[in-house]
Structures are given as C-alpha cells and as structure tokens.
C-alpha cells in the first residue's frame, strides 16, 4: 500500500509541477494525471477511498502515518498546507477530468477547492466534548439557535481567506504584524542582527514593509506578498557574519574590507538556505539583492546569465530607498523627492524601470493620501 501511495503522490506532484510550469492542457499533465489514476486503481483494489490527513507535519494516509517517506510526500504535504487543505479524500470512481481539475486548483492557487463528486478537500480538527461553549449545547444559555447559526455564518464570513483577498485598509499592517508574530523563528534569525546593529534591524523592518508595499501595488497575491516581506526582512542577515569593525568603520574602506562587506550576500544566502521553513525567495534575495537589473553588481560569479528574480529586484528598490531616507551618523536623511530623483537616475541600470515606475507612482500616491 505504501508504495502505491508514494507512486500516486509522485504522479500527482509531477502533474502539478507540469501544470504550473506549462499549462493545464500540456500533454505531460495528462500523462501524469493518467499515471495518478493508474496508481489510484491499484489502491482502490484494496479500499474504496484514500484519505490524506495532515496532522502537524505528518501525512496520515487512511489513518496510518507516513513519516520520512521522501521528497514527494513532503512536497505534497506542503502543497496541501499552502492551499489550506489538511484533509483530502479521493473516492473510488474518480474521473480523469476531476483529478485534472483538482491538480489545476493546486497548481493555480484558486481561492477555494472545486466542488468535485469524488474528491473532497477540507480541514482536520480535534473535537473535545467539554470544550464546546455551552451556547452550542443549548444549556444555560441565552443565545438562541438562530443566534448560533448566525455565529456560524459570521464565523465563516470572516474567514481569514476572504478578509485577505479584499485588501482592506489595515491589510498590510495586519499582515506585517501577523507575519512578525507568526514567523517567530524568523525573528529569532534576526535577533543576532538586532544585537549587532540596531540600524540593521530597523532597516530590515522598513525594507520588509516597502517590499510588501511594492508587491501589493503590482497586484501580487497574499502568498508572494508574505514571502517577499520575509525576504525583505532577512535580505541583509548576512551582515551578521561580517566583522563589526568593517561593517561600522568610518572613513574609507580598503579593497579587502569592501570585499568582505560584499560577502554578506553569500553569507546570508548560506545562512538562510539552512532553514527549510523559510520561503525560497529569502535565500534568492539575500544572494541577489546587490546584483542589479543590469547584472553589474555583486556577487559577480554566475552559473548562467539569468536575470535577477523579481523579489530581488523589488527588495533592491526598497533597500536603496530606505538607505537614502534613513539617518546615519555620517549622513542626513534625504527627502522623498530627492531620493526618488536619484533612484530614477539609476532606472534601467541598477533598477528595473517598470518596477521603479510602479514604486514611484504608488509611493507618491500613498504619501499624498
């Protein structure tokens, strides 16, 4: 059974990857969906349905835990989690079209799972009898059953999902705070930086806000905005490994010292790559945020001539903006206009002109408001 399940998961994940990379109609998607169905047929010879549950970091398949079962199980688990699904049931009789539709949902990140007759997606929960508020039980309560229904209705109506998709006024604030709170581990990563240099800490927080702001303005979804916020927060974490004397030296740096400072991009990327729970863009951005749109920055070594990732381009703008707007012992804080004017000079060279245009347009609008 275990092997069959692993084959199924591998096939579903491969279909999903191909779907994300190419299109729903790509022949490889169809091929892996067919493979998934073949695997399901094998499973359905033993049972009428297959149920996946995610209990914390474990995948439980038909009430049996699957731990340390390799890359695909881990990827599958993470994918379901990011789509807000902790329980998935596939019933005997499932059709190719249903499976394809579900794979497409997982790949595209639509808001809610499609309503399919043989595939049920939901959430795992634990119910404890006495923990139920008595209003539920109808005892010792003044709340009527209508009110209870109302509670339920409102409860579902204010699902965080919906709240976030409607981009409310406090959305960025909330998300930033929530992110900070929720990503406790990430803050721990930054703690040494805080102790190292308070400026670095403040700068990281500002860059995070400015990066999320840009991503929002460009119309990206919650997941990417969240990830870029983390990337902004941690982009300079490599400075932790640069000697303090060099980092805070006043006056002219020697070439060797400057080389050491430049290495913070690599140090940061190594440091972040060790933490699997961080979004990948954090590592990418840490390495690339000084490379520049024209590719002339550092680190200079490359494996190919590929361009900077979007997150690095965005964080770079935020980084530069905050550096100029901030007050340092050796410089005054620049005004918004002069900062933007200077940045525009580098548009098309250091900065992506499209991103620069969007940043300028929106920041002026935001500050006017």
């Amino acid at each position, binding site marked *: 059974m275990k092997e069959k399940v692993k084959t199924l998961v591998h096939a579903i994940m491969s279909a999903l990857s191909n779907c994300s990379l190419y299109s729903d109609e790509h022949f490889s998607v169809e091929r892996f969906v067919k493979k998934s169905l073949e695997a399901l047929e094998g499973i359905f010879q033993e049972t009428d349905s297959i149920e996946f549950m995610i209990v914390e970091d474990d995948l439980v398949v038909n009430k049996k835990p699957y731990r340390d079962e390799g890359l695909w199980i881990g990827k599958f688990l993470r994918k379901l989690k990011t789509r807000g699904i902790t329980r998935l049931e596939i019933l005997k009789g499932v059709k190719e079209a249903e499976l394809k539709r579900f794979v497409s949902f997982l790949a595209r990140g639509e808001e809610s799972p499609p309503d399919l007759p043989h595939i049920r997606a939901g959430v795992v929960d634990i119910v*404890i009898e006495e923990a139920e508020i008595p209003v539920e039980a109808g005892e010792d309560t003044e709340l009527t059953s209508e009110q209870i229904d109302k509670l339920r209705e409102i409860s579902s109506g204010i699902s965080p999902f919906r709240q976030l998709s409607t981009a409310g006024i406090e959305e960025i604030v909330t998300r930033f705070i929530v992110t900070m709170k929720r990503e406790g581990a990430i803050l721990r990563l930054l703690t040494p930086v805080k102790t190292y240099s308070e400026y670095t800490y403040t700068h990281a927080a500002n860059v995070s806000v400015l990066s999320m702001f840009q991503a929002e303005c460009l119309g990206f979804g919650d997941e990417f905005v969240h990830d870029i916020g983390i990337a902004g927060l941690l982009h300079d974490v490599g400075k932790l490994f640069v000697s303090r004397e060099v980092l805070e030296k006043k006056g002219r740096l020697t070439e060797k010292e400057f080389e050491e400072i430049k290495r913070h991009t690599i140090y940061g990327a*190594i440091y972040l790559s060790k933490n699997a729970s961080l979004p990948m863009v954090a590592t990418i951005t840490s390495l690339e945020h000084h490379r520049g749109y024209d590719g002339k920055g550092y680190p200079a070594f490359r494996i190919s001539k590929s361009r900077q990732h979007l997150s690095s381009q965005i964080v770079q703008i935020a980084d530069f903006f905050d550096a100029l707007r901030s007050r340092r012992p050796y410089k005054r804080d620049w005004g918004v206009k002069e900062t933007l004017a200077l940045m525009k000079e580098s548009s098309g060279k250091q900065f992506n002109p499209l991103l620069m245009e969007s940043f300028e347009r929106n920041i002026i609008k935001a500050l006017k408001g």
Partner: protein
Amino acid sequence: MGKREALPLDARLLSDAIIELNISRRNVSIYPAEHPAVRQSLAKAYGHLEKLFELRDEITIAIAKDTIIVDEYYLDRKNPVFREFALHLNRLNIACLTFTKGLSRDEIFSFHKILSEKPSELNEEIITKRLHDEGVVHIKPGFIDYNAFVAREGTERPGSDASTGKGLWERYVYGLMTGTLVRGEISGSLSSIPPERLAGIINQFNTGEFDEESYDRVITNYMRRSSERALSARDMGRLIDFINHLRPEVKRQFLRSTVRVTEKELEGVRHALAELPVDRIIDFLKTINDNAIELPETLRNLMERFAKSANISFDPVFVGDAPLVDDFFLDEGITELLKRGRFDEFVSETYQEDIERIISYEAGGEGVALPSELKGDSAEEITRAFYFEKLLEICLADSLSEEDYERLTGELLGMVDEFLDTGRFSCLIRLFLMIEENIKRDRFVEPSRRVRDHLFCNDFIGRLMESIRLHGRDKKEEVMELLDRYGEPIIPHLIEVLVEEEFKNIRRFFLTLIIHFQKKAIPYAVRWLGDERWYVKRNMLNILAECGGIEGLPHVKQYCYHENIKVRTEALKALLRSGDSYGVEVLEELLNSGNEEEVELAIRLTGIFRIEKLKPRLIEMLKRHARSSLDFYRKIPLVRAIGEFGDPRVIPLLKEIFFSKSLLFRGALDGLKLEVLKSLKNYPVTGETRDIIEAALRSSREEIRREALELKRTLLRSRR
C-alpha cells in the same frame, strides 16, 4: 510550565526517569543486555520509577508529537532528551505510556528492545503482541487513534493554526487524557475559533441581550479547559487577545467579567503571568486602566509585580566584562542600545510617518503591467528553479565550508528529481557545470564526485531517460548539451530506450540523440546487432550508417542479404555511406537480380549515394523500350535516381522521353513525364530543358502544367 521546579514531586521523578529511560533506550539499541552501560542505565531508570511508585501506583505520560505531558504538566519542551524520547514514541504512533507498580528491570529492557526495532517494521498490533510475548505487563502503550482527527469542509488560510495543524496534538492528547475526545463528525464547535475570530463574532451581537452572567459564562467557558488544569500563559494570552479584539463597549463588560473570574483563580493567574511576556502584561494593565476597570487589590498587586519585572528584563550573564545574551557577546554600546530603543536615531519623524502611510495604503489596481516573464516569478515552480540556481552559485562561493557544500548538494540532488519530471534539463546541465568547476578548482573534490556518481547511477539515468522520452523533443538543444556532459557512458542507456520504445516518433528522436555521438556510438550499436529482432538490427544498422566510420563495417556486411528488406536496406546504406566497395558490388548484384523489389532498392540507393559506377547501368535501363504501362512506371525510380547525379549528358534522353507519345499507355507515360519534369531542377538549364518546360506548360495534364509553372518560376528566381 517547563521549569522543573514548578513540577510536583511525582512529575519531577518521572522526568528524571524519562531522562534515564532515554539513555537506556539508546544503550539497549547499541549494546547487548549484559553490557555495563545497559545495566547501569536500566538500574537508574528503574530506581527513579521505583521511587515514583512509592508515591502512586500508576503514572501515565502523554506524547503530543515532540512534547511529553505528565498529568497537566508539560515537561520542558526545550530539553532535547524529552523531545527525542517523545519523537521516538510518536514515530511509533504511541500517544501515551502507562507505567504501573510492579515494573521490573527486565520489562524495561524488553520494552526498549522492541521499540528499538525499525519503526517501519512496527505497528500497533506488532508492538502489542511483542510486549505480550515478552511479558511486559507493567508498561502499557496507548496508540494514536486517527479516527479522532475529524474532517470539516472548506480550507483554511495558509499559515493559520488549522492549516499548520498547530495545537492539534495538544488537543488530541488533552482529549485523550480527559476522556473527552469526540470521534466522528465534527460539531462545528466554537471552541476552536481563535480569539480574534471569536471576538469578531461577539462584536456582531446586540449587547443589550447580554447580562453580567452571560459575559461571565463566556469567559468561564472560554477558559473552561484551563480551569481543569492550571491556567497557562497560553490561556491567559488567548483571553487577552480575545478581549483586545472586542469593540469598546463589549470590551469593558468582558474586562469586568475577566477580573471577576480570574480573581477566583489567583494561584493559576500567578502561574500564567510568570510565563507571559512582560509587555503583554503591561498592555493588559493599560487596557484595564483605559477602561476604568477597578482591579481587586490582590490581582492588581500580582499583575504589577510581574509588570515591574520589565525594568529588570535586561540582565545578562557576564563572561569577564562582556555581557552574554544567548551565545552572543555584547559590548557596552550595544547593551545601552538594547536598554533604550533608539530608532529615532535612524528614522526621522517624517520618514516614520511615511512608513506608516505606506503601511496603511490601500493598493489599488493601478499597478504597472509587468511582462509575463516577471509575473511568473511568483509561481513556485519558477522560484524553485531560481533557488536551485542560487544554491549552485553558493556552491561556487569561496567562503563555503565542506559541510555546507555537502548539505547544499544534497538539497540540489533532491530538487533535480523534480526537474526531471518537468523536463528542465538546463538545471541538470548547470549542476554538472558546478561540480566540474569545483573539481577543476580542486575543492570539495570528494563530495563533488559523489554528486557525479549519483547522476551516473542507473536509477537516476533511468529517470533521466523517461524524462527525455517525455520532454526531450521540445528541448532538443538542452538534451544534446546534457548528453554531452554525460558523454559516452550515456549511449547504452539511449540505445536501451530506442530498442524498447513503441512510438515511432520517440524512436526517431532517440536515434537522433545516439547519432549525435557519431563514432562513439558505433561499438554500442555493433553490440546490439546480434539482437534477434529485425527492427533492432535495422536501427543499429541505421546508427552505423549515420555515424560513418569503418569500425562497424565488418559486422554490417553479413546483413546485406538479410531476409528482411528493411534490414538489408540499412546494411547497404551503412556500406555505401562509408564508400565501401562491397556495398557497390551488392548493389550491382541486386540491379541484375531480376527481383523487382531488390532492383528498385538498388536503383534508389544508387541514386541516393550517387554511385558513378552504376550510373551507366541505370541509363541503359532507362533507354530500354517500354512495352507496357508497367514498364513506364518502372522507369519512374530510374529517372529519379539518375536525376540525383544531375549529369547534363542525360538531358537529351529526358527530352526524348518527354516528347515521346503512346496511344495505349498514355497515363503511365504522363506519370513518367511528370517525374522527368520534377528531376529537371537537378540539371543545369539548357535549351533542351527550356523546350521541355515550354512543352509542359502546354500539356493537357494539369499536374504537368502546374509542375512546369513552378519550375519556370524557380528558374526565373534563380536567374534574378
């Protein structure tokens, strides 16, 4: 909880016993029963448990994933021993363990022995049976019952507690211990609603419907689980969160209620406050004051006492003159910095205001339209490819340790599998480039070789072949480049796929890939020539023909007379391509064989390979008088083959054919004339060819006129 001193005596003894149990568990898995390390650790564990049984007859520990719970106490979650022991039991699906009086050392040993077997080979039935068989009656495991994890419809926002599963284990264990676990369908309980959501729900109600008791009831019930055990910082935090999210008028009512309820539980509150971050207590006190709620003196004193601890919160350990926070030495300047946040030193008031405006800015739909290439960067698959490349770059960085290099290459190899499924061969090429570069620089040589070995292992290459089958034709250049990285060792794998492949277009593609290796492919193709299947022979002969060279020729000759004409054709092609005279001899023999199929093959190959020696023979055959329509049709391949030579001396003969007439076999003759016309493009333009074209333009057959017109246009174009 967590602090050992806070535990009651029995729990403390058990925590000591668990430490020894974990040590003995490890020893038992490594050493035999008589080993001193095993005996000593078992004796210690047994000693602690024995003391424990003086206090009570039975004790149960519950395992919430990586945490051990004794009665209502969590054993220190940060303690790696408890964590390891908990995870070990969790991996075996054990949710609780009950130790009862009468337990012997042998039972502990047997228990460890059974549990040290491979988790994959153990399950509930096996463990239960083995414990029974070994006479372990005083240690009883309880297993995780996944039926208690129930489903409800819908999804949760990524990152929410429900989606991450946070708290599920604790709730499960709590329910298990209190016997209140509900199995089966979920009731839609409000108890699982997070504080802010519950507050949101209550904010919707008309408060006029509530009286004081209602508020107390909600508070009591929201804390009800807590009242069963000691109030924890988490419960307290949830309560504060809940209150903070209420609208002002409701908030006051609930604050009053909270004060009333918590006043009755001062001891619990003390425990909870001790664990709660100071800033949260200060905020809570501020909320109470802002709402003009009167706090009973005892409660106020208690809260203020904990709140005041903020003033002494920065009290680091000193090593020499340097204060130590965790494992970071801090100098005086930084110590000062931490005591007083000095953000204004960096962020001016106006910039701070800007940041706040940016935070509260409602992004509209006026963004700049990004090209799809950049937009796509937010997709996980694209980001993963970027990430892969960045890891490769890090692997080339000077400042990387060997340990990190091994970790990163491990991660890279894990990702490569995924790229195979999606046909991203360029990622693999880059991985090759990276390891080759490191080997060239004489750094991380051994780990790099291990990566190389992995890429060359049969299992991996098998998956690579499957990926090439599926995606290769769309990414031919990438595949070729990758195969170049593999070099000759990949050829037998390609041939294996070719031999077994059922689809013609994939076979053709694999032939191209093999032929790409040119002479290197010859020995492998020769090896497969002995295969009995005719199509395998044909394909191998095809490879030999396309790869050129003389190495394979001795093996080819024998197939020139193979029973299957397709095999014969390929064998002849191989010989003719290499200019082998034996091939010409065979061809001549075939031309004279009288076997129509063989003659036609010989004519075709003579033309394709322009065998000068046989050209006169073909011309002679063309000149033969046609006595039937079949004779005319037989001349068509001759015209075509002779046309391959483009010899102008043949043009008069072609003209003669074109201007000839036949009353009986007009249709067949027209077919031949059309072929003559088609072949003219291979000859130089002369007066005779023009005559043919002009005559063809006047032909009554449309096909001939069309061909002539096309030919005329081509000639005009070439003249220009």
